[in-house]
């Protein structure tokens, strides 16, 4: 029935590239360009710096190859920073996850006053690390803080001076950081728990499982994605940890609480070792990307299915 005219050329409807058609890309372009330059361009810039002999200012005239990285990993302060990062991140992640999960499970028991407790657990997340640092710095200060309080209450022999002790100071930073973040982890787990299908729990109850068993065998295993998210968020925060350390100890006593972020700052702007500072920043980025990239990949890839 269709009278196909063979002479008619195949009209390829190529919408004319009018302004309206290009507008979306024009709108997106500035943001994307800024990100390309200020993030990826700058990463390349810093990578170049890390192979240069820059001291006070960027200096691309001398190339030192991997020398900055060799010096970095032979520098005792960097080794301290890495050790501190290991101690800090392991304790921070484990304790936050544990407290977060425990509080979430407890709060999920139809607790009266949940509406009051939840915001109390979470408010530290709204504070600056500097404020947190000030509060804990003085609270843990032996002269006026906890030790002083205990002694004034009659416990004369009480001693708690970790913040002044090189071996222990990093743990005081863990205490403050856990204080700030664990409520947030609680909120993540609570959202996860509330998302569990009620019918699964009912089925388990009918099977005769006790509350403890239901949590241990069914609910907590279902929280795996939340554990993963919490791990990624906390690990990422741990590697970036800078403000809190500056406010509490500024790396002291001595260099006892240096972290990689602090190292980068001190070497680049304090000691005029820009090449080494850049190298340390590159190492930090590699650590974060090693965690984030696979995570994002699985999250985005998983969503497409």
């Amino acid at each position: 029935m269709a009278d196909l005219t063979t002479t008619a050329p195949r009209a390829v409807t190529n919408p004319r590239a009018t302004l309206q058609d290009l507008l979306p890309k024009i709108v997106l372009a500035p943001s994307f360009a800024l990100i390309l330059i200020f993030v990826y361009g700058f990463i390349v810039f810093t990578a170049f710096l890390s192979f240069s002999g820059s001291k006070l200012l960027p200096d691309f005239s001398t190339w030192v190859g991997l020398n900055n990285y060799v010096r970095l990993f032979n520098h005792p302060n960097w080794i301290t920073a890495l050790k501190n990062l290991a101690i800090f991140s392991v304790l921070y992640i484990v304790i936050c996850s544990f407290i977060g999960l425990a509080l979430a499970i407890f709060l999920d028991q139809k607790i009266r006053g949940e509406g009051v407790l939840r915001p109390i657990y979470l408010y530290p997340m709204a504070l600056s690390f500097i404020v947190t640092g000030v509060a804990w710095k003085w609270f843990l200060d032996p002269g006026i803080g906890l030790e002083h309080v205990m002694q004034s209450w009659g416990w004369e022999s009480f001693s708690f001076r970790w913040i002044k002790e090189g071996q222990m100071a990093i743990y005081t930073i863990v205490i403050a950081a856990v204080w700030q973040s664990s409520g947030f982890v609680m909120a993540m787990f609570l959202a996860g728990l509330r998302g569990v299908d009620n019918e699964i729990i009912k089925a388990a109850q009918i099977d005769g499982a006790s509350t403890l068993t239901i949590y241990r065998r069914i609910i907590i295993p279902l929280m795996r994605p939340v554990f993963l998210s919490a791990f990624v968020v906390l690990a990422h925060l741990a590697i970036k940890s800078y403000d809190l350390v500056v406010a509490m100890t500024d790396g002291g006593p001595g260099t006892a609480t240096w972290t990689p972020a602090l190292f980068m700052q001190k070497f680049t702007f304090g000691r005029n070792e820009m090449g080494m500072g850049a190298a340390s920043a590159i190492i930090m980025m590699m650590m974060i990307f090693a965690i984030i990239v696979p995570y994002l990949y699985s999250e985005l890839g998983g969503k497409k299915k």
Partner: protein
Amino acid sequence: MSAASQDVATRNGIFARALIYAVLILFAVYYLLPLYVMVVNSLKPLDEIRQGNMLALPQQWTIAPWLSAWSTAQIGVSPTGLKPYFLNSVMMVVPAVALSTILGALNGYVLTKWRFKGDNIVFGLMLLACFIPFQIVLIPSARILGLTGLAGTITGLVLIHAIYGLGFTTLFFRNYYEAFPTELVRAAQIDGASFFQIFRRILLPSSGPIIVVTVIWQFTNIWNDFLFGSSFSGFNSIPLTVALNNLVNSSTGVKEYNVHFAGAILAALPTLIVYIVSGRYFVRGLMAGAVKG
């Protein structure tokens, strides 16, 4: 089940619930303790802190530390209090939040409703930018700010915060608009609405919640920032967090703990108020920023 064992069960249940409440309240104390310490000691004279007990209520109430922290405390070289720095922070935060939120909304709109080849790569690169350690951009940023004459200015800080917030704002709006029905956009196209008309008339009126979430997220992050503030601010553009740190950690003079605490509360107040007023949105932002890629 016999009556006796049922009895044991309920008694165990009561014991368990009591334990749960005890733990929950203990943790509430843990979280509130630092805030309590700050508030109580910011209202005491300095002597009372040094000789007395940090956990005790003031014997002699005073607001002098607050006044000092606000307007007379020695910060750096001048006895100005935190007031000028508070204003610096406000002048830095407001435009930076506005700029990054507007751009993020437009980006999210384009990335979901005007898709093009390679849009996923663009989004992926913007998303990954959220997670970089900012140390890696400190040196070149300082360089660019120097070259453009923006070093040490509030404008420079606004730009830096706006740019490095773009990843998150775009992420928020993209995820929100992803769930926004595309058929509405198509209906508006058939009605003849233009690119910007569709955004303004169709999407924006439904974007209230995500705008609130984004503004709170950006406000909290930028207000609380220390790294950029300490790296890029000049004499006239130091933000509040940096000033507070200078106040607390200056090595000279007597340590006025009560003034430090008052200053810390002043610095925390804006974000705390936002949290109290709109906690629901605050939490939603945290979750969106943290959990979903």
